[in-house]
């Protein structure tokens, strides 16, 4: 069974009687452990698609199954649990709590996890180590560089060892070198830890870190192809 099963997915926004279709008849599957990039120009509907995949938004038509279940199979509280335990989110604008330390930012999902507090420090520190930021543990997140901030966000996404990581333009606010480092980290997490990754981007060179790229144009799948020459920049990986 595929981890993600999307079939004939539709999403239409209704604003003051004007309906704008954002996603039209999209179908694809993602297997466990896959690294998929969803690529398209801005306004192509890729962010809308990601929100539906992350159970943050509801589709207007078609079906979406995550791990065999649709959004309607869960109560709102169970949905929060699924997002908390099975999904990790990385955003373009990092979304860290600015006047809070790196450690406490990474602990944030643990607050809602039901895991005993005595394990929190250990789990958070391990996730921070995984993204190579152990030396920044007690720094206020506002004082970090953009690349470091995004890596904190990734540690936060990883701390509960989710089945899937959704990354929405993770390099969009970074210079190319920091962006490159973030992509290396994502790639390594996918390869070494087996996390399924869905990456949203509009940049070809970012998408080329993935194994497979789904091109989206005007809400439809334009192309779904395997990446033949995957970017491998081992020198950035510690």
């Amino acid at each position, binding site marked *: 069974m595929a981890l993600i099963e999307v079939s004939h997915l539709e999403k239409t926004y209704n604003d003051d009687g004007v309906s704008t279709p954002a996603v039209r008849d999209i179908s694809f599957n993602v297997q466990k452990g896959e690294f998929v990039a969803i690529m398209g120009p801005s306004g192509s509907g890729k962010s809308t698609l990601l929100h539906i995949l992350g159970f*943050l938004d509801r589709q207007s038509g078609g079906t979406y199954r995550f791990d065999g279940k649709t959004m309607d199979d869960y109560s709102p509280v169970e949905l929060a649990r699924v997002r908390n335990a099975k999904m990790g989110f990385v955003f373009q604008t990092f979304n860290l709590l600015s006047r809070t330390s790196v450690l406490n930012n990474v602990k944030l999902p643990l607050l*809602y996890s039901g895991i005993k507090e005595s394990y929190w420090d250990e789990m958070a520190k391990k996730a921070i180590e995984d993204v190579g930021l152990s030396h920044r543990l007690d720094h206020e997140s506002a004082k970090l560089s953009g690349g470091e901030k995004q890596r904190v966000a990734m540690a*936060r996404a990883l701390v509960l060892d989710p089945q899937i990581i959704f990354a929405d333009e993770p390099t969009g606010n970074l210079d190319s070198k920091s962006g490159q480092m973030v992509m290396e980290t994502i790639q390594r997490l996918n390869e070494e830890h087996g996390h399924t990754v869905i990456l949203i981007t509009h940049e070809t060179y970012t998408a080329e870190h993935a194994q497979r790229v789904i091109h989206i144009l005007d809400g439809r799948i334009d192309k779904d192809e395997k990446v033949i020459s995957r970017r491998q920049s081992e020198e950035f990986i510690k």
Partner: protein
Amino acid sequence: MVIKYSIKTALNGLKTHKSRSVLTVLGIVIGITAIILVMSLGQGAQDLILGQIKGIGARTIATVPGRQPKGPTDFISMFTDSLKPADLLALSQKKNVPHADGIMPVVFGSQSAVYENNTYRPTIFGATELFSKIYNIYPEEGRIFTNDEVKSYSDVVVIGSKVNIQLNGNGSLLNQKIKINGRNFKVIGIFPKQGQSTFLNFDEAAFIPYTTAQQYVFGKKHFDRIVVQADTEANVAQTVEDIKITLRNNHNITDPTKDDFFVETQAQAMATVGTITSVLTLFLAAVAAISLVVGGIGIMNIMLVSVTERTREIGLRKALGATEKDILVQFLLEAIILTALGGAIGIILGATLSFIISLVLTKFLAVNWVFSFPVGAAALGLGVAAFVGLVFGIYPARQASKKSPIEALRYE
């Protein structure tokens, strides 16, 4: 989410906006301070007044000539000379008023007192030796007059501290002669300073035998009061009835509504005064409570701003697994912590102010004021503050919890 972490998160939220939190709390602080101050001072005033009435004695029954006033315009103008020596005689008899422990006729009025070149107008009370016992006041220097001196129309006087000061400065007038209504009186006793008193101002009074007062000072045959002391508090009600029956007999009154006298007890006075001060205190507290509501609206306003400002944070928390309840609890706790903090500060501030005022009243105005901390009002104040936080916090908190995570994350 664990409640300990909810509180921690809420505290962090407040800490990041320190000055805003402080200003928000101020509204609640003022409201609670005002309530505590009013309640505490009201309690103090009530204790003071009731204490003075108690000082007169719960067993004391005063018979007053005239008809009991039925309204503000109904002056006690009729039958003011209705208490006669025959009434005193009748009330003194054991068979008429069996539970009377003592009986004292009183006449009073204002008269000039002169010593050398100084003149002062004290209130002159004509009474018997019993008044020291009844009013629980004894001379600081000298003595009170005796029963014999009352019977023999003696020209002796016991004066209040202010009378002494007005007539002779700091020099004691003991054993000196002062002129009252042109007649020489020997000062045989001086009362200690009592301070401001609501009912009887002993400092500005002079006490002489009632016989002398009637005959030589006021020239009247009737009494202004006949004070009876019952043997026990339990017998006060019975004694009141006995007095009424005796006097009606003496005055040939068959219809109680036509009484030409009325009887007052301290219990009645205490009940009346207690009611008046309680109502006043409640009224003032209600006025103070309005400022609490204003403070609560201030909290709601700030929480709404805070919710809007932290839209992204709310979206993020939801994306990371926070439920609506988690968000609701977080923002509600922030509001409640703010108000409870304001309540606690208000209670401390109110009690401190009230304590300072009680100190000022005792030290500088010589009022026998006892500071009382209204525990009930404090608990109420804290409860009300937390309730205000709950009521005015719930709307912003609901707004926060209902935010859609994607809308919230998109919010710039």
